[in-house]
């Protein structure tokens, strides 16, 4: 039996609730990347820090989306690290915008913990971390 199962398929990360995560991350990629691309191209000098952070957020979202779709154990670990980074980013920038609004003449995706985006930016990494943890247990059991 073990011989035939030598080539194990990659852990699918987008089965079940994972598909919803991919969708929401995909939406955030489009939102963050297009927003920051437009703002950096047209009015970068107005709020360089905010627009750079939005672009950074877009890149992180893009990478997480890719790892989720690709699947597999390495991707799962990479996605977990990125989600932790994302969560740290949301919390840091969210707190930063509340303490010192003057540093941000314009909003970023992560301002006020992502309030302008229905708090999705702060809810996503938490649910993603939970989901990625669950799919490991599933893989170990199955």
């Amino acid at each position: 039996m073990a011989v035939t199962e030598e080539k194990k398929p990659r852990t699918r990360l987008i089965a079940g609730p994972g598909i919803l995560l991919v969708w929401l991350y995909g939406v955030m990629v489009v939102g963050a990347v297009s927003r920051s691309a437009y703002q950096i191209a047209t009015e970068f000098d107005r709020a360089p820090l905010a627009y750079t952070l939005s672009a950074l957020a877009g890149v992180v979202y893009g990478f997480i989306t890719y790892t989720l779709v690709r699947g597999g154990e390495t991707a799962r670990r990479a996605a977990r690290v990125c989600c932790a980074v994302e969560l740290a980013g949301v919390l840091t920038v969210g707190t930063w915008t509340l303490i010192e609004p003057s540093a941000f003449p314009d909003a970023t995706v992560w301002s006020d913990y992502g309030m302008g985006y229905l708090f999705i930016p702060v809810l996503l990494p938490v649910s993603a971390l939970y989901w990625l943890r669950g799919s490991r247990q599933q893989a170990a059991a199955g």
Partner: protein
Amino acid sequence: MLDVLTLVTAVAALLLAAWCGWAAYRGQPTKDWHFIGMAVVTVLTLAQLVIGVVKLAQGQDPEQGTTIFVAYLLGAFACIPAAGFMSLAERTRWGSVTVAAGGVVLAVLQVRLYDIWGG
């Protein structure tokens, strides 16, 4: 004209979200009827895209800039088809949840479109 269509699309998107949310609640994947509903909402966003571009061609200016306006029109048009394809790949209740989330996202886009046009 554009404002009315924006309102109608937003309401239709929320109805679609509620409908697919109900299917998810009952543990069902999206079915043919849901896809017809998605097609209806997509036709609305397509009409919006066409009318929006015609209005731009007639020389009317959106309050917050033409680029943002067109970007949101395209985003609104792509939103439901993208969610629909993902629900085809995931034939469980989670596919329905994804389309429901797509409906909510589209409704939010409509609110933003209304602001951008300056209605």
